């Protein structure tokens, strides 16, 4: 009896192969039953995300089970085995155990330390469990993997800081205004990056947006898609009193917001803190504006710099994380050996 994992991910396979082998959630149940009907493994879990497709199995078949799994994947993806075999990894215990612990902890993700993966691993496990595809080994293994992921986050800084420009901007806003719920965001210009940041802020509960652009129709479209109101570019200053965050990303080739102008705004706002995010290149907001009391100015390089620093911080934690994962793999393997030697003795 051994634990195996067969799979491919963003490191081993290009998107053309990954998309063919990707398994949508609504098909998981059916495919698990097909694997069961073909007696491929005694226990099985299918994990499929946008970056990986993996089959975790427990059985005695060894090479035979591996070959039949490859045939199953080939059939499902309508690909020849030779088209994806070299991109497929096959790991046997204890490597398969260590791999699952790393995946669940976000150590194997494209964005190291991301947390979405733990939810996806849980969904994959619960789906298999509900369909009675798991037994003692995979139940224990997956539940252990959730604990390992949790422990890694509390014992290391693998999840510290945000690593995307939009989430860094949201994080900063929440360090100024507590919660974005109640904060009002004004978007000047309708560029892709400002849309992304605005979307992230709305998803965290920011009040309906105020969108202003020289192209009023574009402002209306963005306001309609994210919820909010469009304001003509000539009128945006009249709304400054109501806003807490200004996202500037117009294509104007010169500075649009000057220090003296913001100084006036601060008086009208009774010195309520103002967060200015200048994502435009060339910049839309005069750099010296950030010197004013209670005005916090960040440009695209500042946000990018924080994201990169946080990513470097996460990478610096990898050695410690893998050491902890190896330790946990050792504990799990001890349990597995003990459990099955007792079971075998009992069956004799």
């Amino acid at each position, binding site marked *: 009896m051994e634990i195996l994992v067969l799979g491919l991910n963003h490191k081993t396979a290009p998107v053309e192969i990954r998309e063919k082998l990707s398994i949508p959630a609504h098909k998981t149940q059916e495919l698990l039953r097909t694997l069961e009907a073909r007696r491929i493994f005694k226990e099985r879990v299918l994990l499929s995300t946008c970056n990986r497709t993996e089959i975790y199995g427990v059985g005695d078949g060894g090479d035979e089970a591996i070959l039949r799994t490859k045939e199953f994947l080939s059939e499902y993806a309508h690909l020849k085995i030779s088209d994806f075999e070299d991109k497929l990894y096959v790991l046997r215990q204890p490597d398969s155990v260590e791999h699952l612990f790393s995946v669940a902890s976000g150590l194997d993700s494209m964005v190291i330390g991301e947390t979405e993966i733990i939810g996806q691993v849980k969904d994959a496990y619960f789906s298999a469990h509900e369909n009675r595809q798991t037994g003692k080994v995979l139940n224990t293994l997956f539940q252990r993997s959730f604990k390992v992921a949790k422990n890694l986050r509390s014992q290391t800084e693998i999840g510290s*800081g945000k690593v995307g420009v939009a989430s860094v901007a949201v994080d900063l806003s929440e360090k100024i205004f507590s919660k974005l719920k109640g904060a009002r965001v004004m978007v000047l210009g309708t560029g892709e990056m400002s849309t992304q940041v605005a979307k992230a802020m709305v998803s965290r509960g920011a009040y309906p947006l105020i969108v202003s652009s020289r192209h009023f129709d574009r402002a209306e479209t963005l306001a309609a898609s994210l919820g909010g109101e469009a304001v003509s570019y000539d009128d945006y200053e009249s709304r400054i009193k109501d806003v807490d965050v200004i996202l500037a990303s117009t294509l104007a080739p010169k500075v649009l917001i000057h220090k003296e102008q913001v100084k006036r705004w601060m008086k009208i706002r009774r010195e309520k*803190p103002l967060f200015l995010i200048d994502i435009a290149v060339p910049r839309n907001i005069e750099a010296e504006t950030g010197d004013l*009391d209670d005005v916090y100015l960040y440009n695209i390089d500042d946000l990018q710099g924080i994201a990169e620093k946080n990513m470097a911080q996460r990478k610096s934690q990898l050695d410690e994380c893998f050491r902890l994962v190896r330790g946990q793999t050792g504990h799990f393997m001890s349990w597995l050996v003990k459990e099955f030697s007792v079971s075998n003795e009992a069956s004799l």
Partner: protein
Amino acid sequence: MVPENWLWIHIALLVTGLMCLLMAVISALLYLLQSAQIKSKHLGKIFLKLPSLDALDKLHFYYLSAGVIFFTSGLVSGIFWARDLKESSQILKDPMAILSFITCVIYWVILSLRASTLSRGQKIAAGTVLAFFLLVVTLMSSSFAPSGFHKGF
């Protein structure tokens, strides 16, 4: 009321007020520290550990309000105590009492500006720090005062 009772009320109110004003200055300093972190764009571990500016501002405001009210009540109870001792005229000769009234007025100005939202954020936090510095000088003044009620306290 016997003068001794006024003395205990005076001490209790002032100690409570000073504790609140100490908490207010701590939250003001944390506000200034967090604000400086965000402005510097070099976000260290302190940035992650400290609460948001909004939360620190609210905390600062609550402690400042409570501190100013208790501190003022403490001063008023001190006046009653002096009156019962028939020593009211001595108040204006006591350096600590005079400095306390000045500090109290400054605290009321800061509190009024913040409560009316005429000013807030960094300026009010800095104001609280300066007022607390004056409060410390006030408390220490009894040690150096040549005369007055509080001499030696």
